[in-house]
């Protein structure tokens, strides 16, 4: 029973109503997350990665969203919970770190007050206890002179410091699952690596499960045990981080890894993936990557490929794998 999954998502589809039609933000997403595991969801804007995250923590406006499928957290079906039950889980057992810490904090309260307030609200502890816990948390996220920082307002802190405070806030009730939405995107490189290391350390020490959403392969590779690549609302490939980066097999993953500048030879043209992602309002009834794919064949246009498992814990939505056409070790020789 110790390999019981903390989170399992089954056939999740999320659709938004908009003036121009129905936006298929997320389609048929399934994945599982073990206790203490770090999953990286990699994708570009509009790939559905952030929406997936927000569905798990129940942050989407209910009246304009159509959510299908099941999200099971620690043995309970999230979609069946009432608002009150969801509020008790949100922030306490599932916590989230956002991309823009400056916007996520309320500018008129000190950072200490905001962390303590969350503790009081969820645990019902006294303000004195909560303040003490807040100080411990700021020390946990390695903020220098934490005591003084407790009384700082958000605008008095630098970006890196605020993101640390944001993580402290997320950890305030000892969550079992931490969701991080592009937590380092707004930061400078030298600060980014500090936050990455902090997240990794906290995850190990506190035994949390983490889902990290990012567009940056490098950041994902530093934190994640497993990766899931999303494209046009669907997971197109999953597997262990090391294997996937070494030998990506979906042409989109391959493109993300090898046709960006990371492994390019200087002065030579990049093998950029042509075109742009499809319109989420009018998703094709075929492989949604087909129009941009250099390996596209007639069968690719006959239906949406299934997420086909192969190898050790890997799966991909590409016909070439299920038909055995792909030599898996060929890609990305630079690593």
């Amino acid at each position, binding site marked *: 029973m110790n390999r019981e999954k903390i989170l399992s998502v089954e056939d999740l589809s999320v659709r938004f109503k908009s003036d121009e039609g129905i936006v298929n933000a997320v389609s048929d997403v399934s994945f599982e997350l073990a206790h203490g595991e770090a999953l990286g969801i990699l994708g570009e804007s509009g790939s559905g990665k952030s929406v997936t995250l927000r569905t798990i923590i129940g942050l989407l406006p209910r009246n304009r969203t159509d959510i299908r499928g099941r999200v099971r957290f620690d043995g309970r079906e999230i979609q069946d919970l009432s608002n009150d039950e969801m509020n008790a889980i949100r922030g306490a057992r599932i916590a989230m770190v956002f991309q823009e810490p400056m916007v996520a904090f309320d500018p008129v309260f000190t950072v200490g007050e905001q962390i303590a307030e969350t503790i009081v609200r969820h645990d019902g502890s006294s303000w004195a206890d909560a303040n003490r816990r807040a100080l411990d948390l700021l020390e946990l996220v390695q903020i220098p002179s934490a005591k003084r920082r407790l009384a700082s307002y958000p605008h008095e802190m630098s970006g890196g410091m605020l993101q640390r405070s944001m993580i402290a806030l997320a950890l305030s009730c000892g969550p079992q699952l931490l969701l991080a939405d592009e937590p380092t995107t707004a930061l400078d490189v030298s600060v980014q690596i500090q936050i990455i290391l902090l997240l990794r350390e906290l995850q190990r020490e506190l035994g949390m499960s983490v889902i990290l959403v990012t567009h940056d392969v490098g950041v994902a590779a530093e934190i994640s045990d497993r990766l899931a690549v999303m494209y046009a609302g669907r997971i197109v490939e999953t597997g262990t981080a090391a294997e996937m980066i070494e030998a990506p097999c979906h042409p989109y993953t391959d493109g993300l890894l090898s046709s960006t500048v990371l492994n390019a030879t200087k002065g030579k043209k990049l093998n950029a993936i042509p075109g742009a992602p499809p319109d989420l309002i009018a998703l094709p009834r075929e492989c949604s990557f087909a*129009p941009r794919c250099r390996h596209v064949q007639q069968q690719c246009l006959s239906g949406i490929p299934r997420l086909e498992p192969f190898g050790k814990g890997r799966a991909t939505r590409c016909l070439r794998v299920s038909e055995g056409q792909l030599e898996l070790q060929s890609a990305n020789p630079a690593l």
Partner: protein
Amino acid sequence: MVSDSENYVAANTSLTVTVTAARRNQGYWGRVWTRLLRDWGTLAAISIIALILLAAIFAPLLATHDPTQGSVLGRLKGFGYNGHILGTDETGRDLYSRLLYGSRLTLITGVLPVLLALIIGGFLGVIAGYFGGLINSLIMRVMDVLYAFPSVLLAIAITGMLGSGVTNTILALTITFVPPLVRISETVTSQTRAMDFIEVARSSGAGSFTIIRFHVLSNILAPVLIYATSLISISIILAAGLSFLGLGVTPPNAEWGLMLNNLRSAIWVNPAIAAFPGLMIFITSMSFNLMSDGLRRAMDLKL
């Protein structure tokens, strides 16, 4: 290599065309127009304004009586009395004809001050917002002083000083509306000024005048125009108010505010007749307000 890049260009464009063309096949003004046509409330408001405008223009043709010709006997008579469709006022003049003629002065005192203030205020606001610094402080502090008075008080004070009459009413209302229009055009201009495309234009070597003409005006037009339309209803009410207080249009000219004032005493004799000028002021100002709201929705870029 060449054919490669051609392929990718072709693939790229063909894809994006299918994505966007399906949904957006008209220009910006085309879309504003379609949105307006779909908005029944705004269409109704615009039709009412058009009707009032036509009534004002063709008042001599539509009027049944001379609007200044009174009758000692036929005062404050009800609907249909002796061929007076809407009855007569306190000096026996035909109410229907007076309402028709009154719309002329009401529209003039409603629209003209706003138009003049739009030109003056827009000019000052754009200058202040675009150039900033000392010029901005100078213009905006003067406006702050004018702003310190409530608009009703300011209009009353100015007409009180200049004396009553149509020209002075228009002048007073223009002065009253300059500060808010300066302020809104200054705000949207400085917002526009902060956008990168202004720097792009500057770095292409264009002068300030050219940049204002091409890049600033096009961007501030919608918000300033929408705000100005919303001022028209206030202007109508203020002008009516001034006439009501005896500071605006002078008798025997027909103007709705003045008519309302004069019929005040008739409220006990024939309330239906006394209500008409007020009703017209209400309908007109309401229509201008609704039109301004509708324009704001239709001209929104993001939709």
